[in-house]
C-alpha cells in the first residue's frame, strides 16, 4: 500500500503523482498574523474559515499550529482539532513541539495525522516521548534536522542528523521509514549573508542523499524560507523555482501557501535564469553577486508573472486592493501595494483605488449592508495602506485636499465621538487636524487660521457642551472665522442647532448626527451644496414624553431606615460580579453597532456567536487580568424634605437645594413628589457617584493611538456599559442597605424596566436635567476620594463615571419632563 495520511473523509497519498504534496501553512499562529489575531479573539470559527480557504486554494494537508505565548496551547489545539477534523476534508498536520499536546491531539483526531515535528535538539529526550505516540496512533511525523549543536547547515550534517533520527524512530521504536518525513531545513539566500550563499545547494544535496541513503523515507521542506528578506513579488518567483528544483532532487512535500506557487511555464526564461543563478550561486558577473543581479532585476521590473498570476485569478491587483479595503482584510496588503507601486504613483493609488474603496464602504454602511465595526476594520486597512505609501509620496502631492479642524469644546473631555469623525474623514482622503479636548473658542480660532482649514468640526458629550457651542458662535462670527462649522455630539439636536446656534454665525452651521453625516457635509462643501441646518416643527414633529400616565402618588409610604447618615467611600469592590449586570443587548447592538440590519435572524445569531461573544469574553478576561477595571463608589444617605419643586437635603449643618422641573401636562410629575414634606415628617434620599477607574480609558486611548479603530470602539463601548452595570449593581446594594431590596428583578429585562422598588435618576436625564446639581452632589459625597473630579462643564473625570439621585418610593420610575 502506498504511504498516505487521512482525515475522517479521505486518504491522501504522501507521494503525489504530479508535483509535491502541498501543506497549507496559513493556519499557523506563528506564521500568519490573520490566523493569530483570530485566535487571540478566541474566534475559532474564523480560524476554521482560514483553513477552509487553504483547502480551497489547493492544499493537500493542513498544518495547524496554535502555539503562541500567553495562550493555552493544549486547550486551543483541542478545540481547533475537533472543529477542523469535522469540517475540513484534508488531513491535518498537528504542529506542536509539546509531547503532551501532541498526544492529546492524536487521541481525538479521527484520521491518520502527521505530527510536526520531532528533532534532536535536546539530545533525544522528546523524540522518545513522541515516537510511542506515533506508534500507538499510527501517525506520520515531520523530523527536522536539528541536533544538539543546532540547525544543521551543511548537507553532511543534515544527513547525519537524519540518520540518527532514523535509527531511533525505526530502530528503537519500530516506526516504518515511510512514517518519517525529513525536513532538511533551508535558510534564506536573500539577506546577503555570505555564509548562506550556498544554503540552497546544501539543502538540495541533503534531500537527494536522504532519499538515496534511507530508502522509503519521505522529505518535506518549508520552501519560502529561502527567499526571506527579498521583495514580495520576487519571492514568489524564487520560491517557485526552488520548489521545482527541490522536487527534482526528490522532495515529496512542501509547506507553502498553495495559492502562491507559480508553474514554471508562467515564469519567463530570464526570471528563471536569474533564480537558478541565485539558487546555485552561479557567478556570471565578477562585479556583481547573483543576489545583487537578482535584486536589481526586480527593482527594475515587475515580473510578468505577478500580472499573470493575478489574471489567472481573474483579479487585477487594483481589484485585490479594493477588495482588501472593503473586506477590512490586512492579509497581503503590503505585497499588493508594492505591485501597484510599480505601475502607479502613491497618490494615484490613494485617489484611484483606496479612496473609492472607502467611499464604497461608506455607501454600503449607508444602505445598511454592513455594520459600523466592519467600517472601522476597513478604515484600519486604509490607514495601514496610506502609512505604507507615505514614504513614496512627494510632499507637494498633499497640497490640494480639503482640510478640517476637529475639537471637543471647552469643559468637555469626551473624545471618542470626535475621534470617530477623524477616523472616517481622514481615511476618506481628507486632511484632519484633530486638536484635542477641552478647547476654548480662542484656541480653535487661532488654530483654524494658522492651519488655513476649510471647515471646523466641534464635538461635545453633554448639554453643557451644546451650550458652549451656542455661546461661542458669536465669537467665531466676530473673529471672522469665515468657514462652515459642523456640530456633533449626543446631546445636540437639529432643533437646538437650527434655533440656538445658526443665528449666531453667518456661514453654514450644520448638525451632524454621526461621523457619516460629517463626511457627507464635507462632500457637500466640496460640491458647493452645503446647507445650514433648519428645523421645521411640521416636518419633524415634537417627540412624545414617556412616563406613567394615571398616577396618584401615595404620600403615606413608610420611610426606610438608612444604614448611616452622611457619605462613605468603598474602594475594594470586586469587579467580577459586575459583569452579570452588563446590558448585553445595549452593548452589542448599541455601543458596538452589531445591529441586525438586513441580516436574517440566523445570520445575526451566527455573527453574535462567532464574532461578538468571543470578543466580549476576551474583554472580560482582560478587564480582570490586566487590572483594567477598579470599581469604586462614593455614596451616602441624607435627611431631606420636599417643598414644592425643590428638594432640601440636609448634610450635617449644611442644606443643599435641588430644584427639579415639573411636567407641564398630566400627571404633572416632579421628582419631589416622591419625597415627604416637613409636615409629613420629612424623608430620606440617597446619592451615589461610581467609577470603574481611569485604567480602561488609558487602554482605550492606546488602541486609538495604535490605529486599532475597531478594537478602540469595542473597548470603549465595553467600558461604558460596564460603568452602567456598576451603577445598576450599586443601586441594588443601596436598596438592600435600605431594607427595600425585597422584590428584585430576575433578569436583565427586569432591570431595564425598573422592576424593583424606587428609581435612580441620573443628573442630566430628563427628570433632573440640571447638571449643576453635580456641585452639591460633589460637596456631599466628595468623590475626589475615589479619584473623580468635575470639569467646568460639569462632566465627571474619568469618563467612565456616573452619578444618580436614588428615590426609595415605590411609585418613583423614569419619566420625561
Amino acid at each position, binding site marked *: 500500500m502506498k504511504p498516505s495520511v487521512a482525515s475522517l473523509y479521505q486518504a491522501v497519498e504522501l507521494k503525489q503523482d504530479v508535483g509535491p504534496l502541498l501543506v497549507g501553512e496559513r493556519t499557523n499562529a506563528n506564521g500568519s498574523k490573520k490566523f493569530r489575531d483570530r485566535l487571540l479573539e478566541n474566534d475559532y470559527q474564523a480560524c476554521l474559515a482560514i483553513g477552509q480557504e487553504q483547502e480551497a486554494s489547493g492544499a493537500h494537508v493542513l498544518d495547524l499550529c496554535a502555539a503562541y505565548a500567553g495562550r493555552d496551547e493544549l486547550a486551543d489545539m483541542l478545540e481547533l482539532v475537533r472543529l477542523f477534523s469535522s469540517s475540513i476534508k484534508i488531513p491535518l498536520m498537528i504542529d506542536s513541539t509539546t509531547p503532551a499536546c501532541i498526544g492529546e491531539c492524536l487521541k481525538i483526531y479521527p484520521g491518520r495525522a502527521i505530527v510536526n515535528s520531532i528533532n534532536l535538539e535536546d539530545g533525544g529526550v522528546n523524540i522518545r516521548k513522541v515516537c510511542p505516540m506515533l506508534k500507538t496512533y499510527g501517525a506520520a511525523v515531520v523530523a527536522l534536522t536539528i541536533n544538539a549543536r543546532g540547525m544543521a547547515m551543511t548537507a553532511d550534517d543534515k544527513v547525519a542528523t537524519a540518520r540518527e533520527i532514523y535509527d531511533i524512530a525505526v530502530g528503537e521504536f519500530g516506526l516504518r521509514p515511510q512514517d518519517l518525513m525529513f525536513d532538511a531545513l533551508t535558510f534564506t539566500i536573500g539577506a546577503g549573508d555570505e555564509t548562506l550563499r550556498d544554503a540552497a545547494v546544501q539543502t538540495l544535496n541533503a534531500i537527494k542523499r536522504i532519499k538515496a541513503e534511507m530508502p522509503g523515507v519521505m522529505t518535506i521542506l518549508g520552501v519560502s524560507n529561502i527567499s526571506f528578506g527579498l521583495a514580495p513579488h520576487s519571492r514568489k518567483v524564487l520560491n517557485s523555482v526552488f520548489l521545482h528544483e527541490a522536487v527534482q532532487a526528490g522532495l515529496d512535500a512542501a509547506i507553502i501557501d498553495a495559492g502562491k506557487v507559480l508553474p514554471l511555464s508562467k515564469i519567463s526564461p530570464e526570471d528563471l535564469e536569474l533564480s537558478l543563478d541565485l539558487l546555485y550561486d552561479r557567478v556570471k558577473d565578477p562585479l556583481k553577486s547573483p543576489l545583487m543581479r537578482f535584486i536589481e532585476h526586480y527593482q527594475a521590473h515587475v515580473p510578468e508573472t505577478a500580472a499573470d498570476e493575478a489574471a489567472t485569478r481573474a483579479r487585477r491587483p487594483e481589484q485585490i486592493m479594493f477588495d482588501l479595503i472593503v473586506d477590512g482584510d490586512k492579509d497581503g496588503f503590503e505585497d499588493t501595494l508594492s505591485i501597484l507601486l510599480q505601475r502607479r504613483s502613491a497618490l494615484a493609488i490613494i485617489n484611484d483605488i483606496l479612496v473609492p474603496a472607502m467611499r464604497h464602504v461608506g455607501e454600503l454602511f449607508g444602505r445598511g449592508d454592513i455594520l459600523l465595526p466592519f467600517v472601522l476594520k476597513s478604515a484600519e486597512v486604509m490607514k495601514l495602506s496610506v502609512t505604507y505609501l507615505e514614504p513614496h509620496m512627494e510632499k507637494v502631492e498633499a497640497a490640494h485636499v480639503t482640510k478640517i479642524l476637529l475639537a471637543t469644546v471647552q469643559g468637555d473631555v469626551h473624545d471618542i465621538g470626535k475621534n470617530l469623525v477623524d477616523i472616517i474623514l481622514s481615511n476618506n482622503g481628507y486632511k484632519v487636524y484633530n486638536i484635542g479636548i477641552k478647547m476654548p473658542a480662542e484656541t480653535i480660532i487661532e488654530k483654524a487660521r494658522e492651519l488655513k482649514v476649510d471647515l471646523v468640526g466641534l464635538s461635545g458629550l453633554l448639554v453643557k457642551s451644546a451650550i458652549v457651542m451656542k455661546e461661542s458662535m458669536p465669537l467665531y462670527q466676530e473673529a471672522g472665522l469665515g468657514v462652515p462649522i459642523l456640530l456633533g455630539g449626543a446631546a445636540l439636536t437639529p432643533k437646538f442647532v437650527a434655533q440656538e446656534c445658526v443665528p449666531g454665525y453667518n456661514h453654514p452651521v450644520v448638525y451632524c448626527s454621526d461621523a457619516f453625516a460629517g463626511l457627507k457635509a464635507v462632500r457637500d462643501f466640496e460640491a458647493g451644496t452645503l446647507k445650514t441646518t433648519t428645523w421645521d416643527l411640521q416636518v419633524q414633529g415634537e417627540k412624545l414624553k*414617556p412616563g406613567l400616565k394615571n398616577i396618584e402618588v401615595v404620600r403615606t409610604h413608610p420611610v426606610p431606615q438608612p444604614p448611616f447618615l452622611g457619605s462613605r467611600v468603598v474602594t475594594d469592590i470586586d469587579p467580577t460580579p459586575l459583569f452579570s449586570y452588563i446590558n448585553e*443587548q*445595549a452593548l452589542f447592538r448599541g455601543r458596538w453597532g452589531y445591529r441586525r440590519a438586513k441580516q436574517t*435572524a440566523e445570520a445575526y*445569531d451566527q455573527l453574535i456567536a462567532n464574532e461578538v461573544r468571543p470578543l466580549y469574553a476576551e474583554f472580560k478576561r482582560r478587564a480582570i487580568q490586566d487590572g483594567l477595571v477598579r470599581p469604586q463608589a462614593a455614596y451616602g444617605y441624607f435627611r431631606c424634605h420636599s417643598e414644592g419643586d425643590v428638594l432640601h437635603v440636609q448634610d450635617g449643618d449644611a442644606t443643599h437645594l435641588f430644584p427639579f422641573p415639573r411636567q407641564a401636562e398630566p400627571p404633572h410629575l416632579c421628582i419631589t413628589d416622591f419625597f415627604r414634606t416637613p409636615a409629613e415628617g420629612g424623608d430620606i434620599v440617597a446619592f451615589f457617584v461610581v467609577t470603574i477607574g481611569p485604567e480602561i480609558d488609558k487602554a482605550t486611548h492606546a488602541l486609538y493611538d495604535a490605529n486599532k479603530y475597531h478594537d478602540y470602539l469595542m473597548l470603549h463601548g465595553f467600558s461604558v456599559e460596564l460603568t452602567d452595570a456598576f451603577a445598576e449593581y450599586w443601586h441594588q446594594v443601596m436598596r438592600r442597605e435600605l431594607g427595600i431590596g425585597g422584590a428584585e428583578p430576575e433578569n436583565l429585562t427586569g432591570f*431595564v424596566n425598573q422592576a424593583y422598588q424606587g428609581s435612580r435618576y441620573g443628573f442630566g436625564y430628563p427628570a433632573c436635567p440640571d447638571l449643576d446639581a453635580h456641585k452639591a452632589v460633589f460637596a456631599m459625597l466628595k468623590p475626589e476620594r475615589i479619584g473623580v473630579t468635575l470639569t467646568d462643564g460639569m462632566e465627571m473625570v474619568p469618563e467612565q463615571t456616573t452619578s444618580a439621585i436614588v428615590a426609595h418610593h415605590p411609585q418613583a420610575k423614569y419619566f420625561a419632563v
Partner: protein
Amino acid sequence: MNATTAKKYICVNCGYIYDPELGDPMNNIPPGTAFESLPKEWVCPICYAMQDMFDPLS
C-alpha cells in the same frame, strides 16, 4: 397585522423591548399596536431613543 403575530422590537440603546401585545403605557400606546403602527413621535419609554434605534427581535 394582528397583535399576536406582530414582531417584538428591541431598543439598541438601552435594551427595552417593545412588545405589541403589551403596547406601551408610558406613551399611552394601547395593547395590540404593531411597532410599525406607532406614531412617528413615539420614543423609547426608557431612554427616549427614536424608532430608527430599534432592531427587530428574532
